[in-house]
C-alpha cells in the first residue's frame, strides 16, 4: 500500500505572538514544528504501513527549512520525504496550496491513501485536505477517528461528528483527514533519528510539476484578505452562589430580565 501523508511546518503555537499593527503572526524567532494535527496523520500512515505493508511518503510545500519537518517525519517512521518549494508558490491560499500539492501527488503517481491532519494550527481552515481530493478527483472523508477496515480496494472508516460518528465506506484511492482521537503519536526512535539525519528529501520546484503557472502562488489564489483582527475576548460570566434554591431563584430572575 502506498501512503502519502501531507504535512505542514507551522510556528510552535505555545509561543505565538501577534503583531499588533498588521494583526498577523510574528514568525521571526519562533520555533517551527510539524502542525500538531499532522502528527496524527503521520502516526496513522506509519500504522497503516505496519498493518498492510508498503511505503509512506511525507509531502510538504513550504520554504527550504520545511525540509526539517520531513526529516522529523522520517524519524517517526515515514520512508521518504518530498519538499515542494519555489518562490513561485509564495502567497498561496488554500486553493493554490491544494492545487500545488495535488500536482505533486500526480507526479508521485502510485498511491492508495492520502492522509492529512484535519487542519493546520496556524490557518485553521481545514480546506487543504479536501482541496487536494477535489483537484485529484478522488473521494475524501474528513475528521476520521478510526480506520476500521482497509484493503487494496476499499476502506471503512469512522468519521467523527458532534454527536458521535458515521461509518463511511470509500473506494481507494482516497484522501482522509484525521482528528486527534485516532491515535497517540509515538516518540521518535534513535534508529529513526539516525535515518532521518542521513535522509535527503527530494526537492521539487514549480518546473518539476505539471501545473498551470497562473494557478500558483499569490496569482493563483482567489482568496483576498479584507481585514485581520483579534476578536474581543469573551468576558467572564457572572457567578451566582448560595444554596441551590437561592441560586435557581436568582438565575430565573436574571433570565426573566433578559430578552430571550
Amino acid at each position, binding site marked *: 500500500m502506498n501512503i502519502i501523508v501531507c504535512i505542514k511546518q507551522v510556528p510552535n503555537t505555545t509561543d505565538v505572538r501577534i503583531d499588533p499593527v498588521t494583526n498577523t503572526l510574528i514568525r521571526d524567532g519562533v520555533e517551527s514544528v510539524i502542525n500538531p494535527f499532522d502528527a496524527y496523520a503521520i502516526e496513522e500512515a506509519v500504522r497503516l504501513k505496519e498493518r498492510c505493508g508498503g511505503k509512506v511518503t511525507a509531502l510538504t510545500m513550504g520554504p527550504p527549512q520545511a525540509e526539517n519537518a520531513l526529516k522529523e517525519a522520517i524519524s517517526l517512521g515515514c520512508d521518504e520525504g518530498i519538499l515542494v518549494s519555489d518562490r513561485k508558490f509564495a502567497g498561496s491560499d488554500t486553493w493554490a496550496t491544494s492545487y500545488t500539492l495535488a500536482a505533486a501527488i500526480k507526479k508521485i503517481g502510485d498511491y492508495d491513501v492520502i492522509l492529512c491532519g484535519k487542519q493546520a494550527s496556524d490557518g485553521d481552515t481545514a480546506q487543504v485536505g479536501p482541496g487536494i481530493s477535489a483537484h485529484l478527483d478522488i473521494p475524501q472523508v474528513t475528521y476520521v477517528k478510526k480506520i476500521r477496515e482497509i484493503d487494496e480496494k476499499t476502506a471503512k472508516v469512522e468519521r467523527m461528528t458532534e454527536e458521535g460518528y458515521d461509518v463511511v465506506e470509500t473506494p481507494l484511492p482516497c484522501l482522509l483527514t484525521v482528528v486527534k482521537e485516532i491515535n497517540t503519536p509515538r516518540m521518535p526512535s534513535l534508529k529513526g533519528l*539516525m535515518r532521518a539525519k542521513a535522509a535527503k528529501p527530494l526537492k521539487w520546484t514549480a518546473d518539476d510539476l505539471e501545473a498551470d503557472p497562473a494557478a500558483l502562488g499569490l496569482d493563483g489564489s482567489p482568496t483576498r484578505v479584507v481585514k485581520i483582527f483579534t476578536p474581543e475576548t469573551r468576558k467572564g460570566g457572572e457567578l451566582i452562589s448560595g444554596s441551590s434554591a437561592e441560586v435557581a431563584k436568582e438565575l430565573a430572575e436574571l433570565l426573566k430580565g433578559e430578552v430571550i
Partner: protein
Amino acid sequence: MDYLLTEQQTMIRDLARKIAQEKIKPVAAHYDETEEFAWPIMKILADSDLFGVYLPEQYGGLGGGIMDMCLVTEELSRACGGIALGYAGTGLGTLPILLHGSEEQKKKYLPDIAKGKRLAAFCLTEAEAGSDAGAMRTSARKEGDKYILNGTKQWITNAGEAEIYTVIAITDKTKGIRGASAFIVEKGAKGMEFGKKEKKMGIRASATREVIFTDCEIPAANLISKEGMGFIVALKTLDTSRPGVASQAVGIAQGALDCALDYSRTRVQFGQPISSFQAIQHMLADMATQLEAARALTYATARMSDSGAKAMSKDSAMSKLFASEMAMKVTTDAVQIMGGYGYMRDYPAEKFMRDAKITQIYEGTSQIQRNVIAANLIKETLKK
C-alpha cells in the same frame, strides 16, 4: 556546562529528555502513589531504542558505552528516579553478560535486551549478605549438564518484571569468595519464585522483590565465565555500573533543582519573589555548583570506563559517593527552598528527596564506597 558530547550522544540525551519530560513527568506521581511498575513507559523506551544505547551493534545495540547509558539514566531520573531504575536496573543485570559472557550467551540474550523486549536484573544481595556480599549462602551445584540453585536473593530490583537474571551463587563452599560463580537464570525456570513486592520510602515505581531458588535447574551453559569467577564478575559489574547510579543521582538532583528554581521565582513573600532573597540565591547557587561538579565527575568516570580502563574501582566509587551525597543534599535543600509546599506531595520536591536516598545505599553504601576509595589509595602508595 558543555561536555562536548558526540552528535549521537546529543541525540540520545535529547530523545531521553523528550520522553522523560513529555511521557514520564506527567505520570511520575501516579506511579509513586500506586507503586505499579511503569510498563507503558518501558514500552516507549524500548520502541525508542534507548535500551540498546550501550550495547554493541552486532547485538542490535547502538554501539555506545556507559556514557550513553548514563545520559539516558540521568534524563529519565530527572523526571522519575523510580521509573529510571527499570531502565538502569536492566543495565546492571546485563553487564555481567556484556563484560564476561561467552559469544553464544551474548548472541542469545543481548539482542532482546537491546530491543527492550526483555528486562534484566542482578542478584547479589541476601538477607545476611549486604555490604558483606562474601557472606552469601545461595548455592549452585553441578549435576551433569545442569546446575541446581538453592537460596534466596533479597531486594532485587526488577525482580518479577525482568526475564533475564544474572545471579551470583557459591559453587565451592571451601574456597570462600573464590568459590562464587555467576549464572544466567531465565524467568520461568523451574524452582524459581518471587517474594512479595517490598514497600519502599522512594523509587516506588521500581519493583523490589526476593528471588527464591528451590532446586532451581538451569543449563550448565548458563554459567558466565568460569566457576570461581563470580566475585570478579560482580565486582567488575559494579565498577562499571556505579557511574550509572551516579547519573541517577545527578538526574534526581537536577529534577529537584529545576522544581525549586521555578518555585522560588513565583513564590512571593514580604512582597517579593523569594528568589530575590540572598539566602535563597546562595542555596540555589550551591546546589547548581555541587550538581555540576557531580555531573562532571560522573561523565569523566563513564568516559574512563568506555576508554577500556582496567582498574577503576576507586574512580567509580568516587563518582557514586560524590553524586549520591550531593543528591541527598540538593534534594533536601530543594524541599527547604519550597518550605511547607516542598513537604507536600502536591509538588515533586519531596519525592526527589525520597528517591535520592537510595543512591547512597544500593550498589554499595556510601561507607562501602569510602572503604573502596581508601583501600585503593593505600594500595597505590604501597606500589610506589
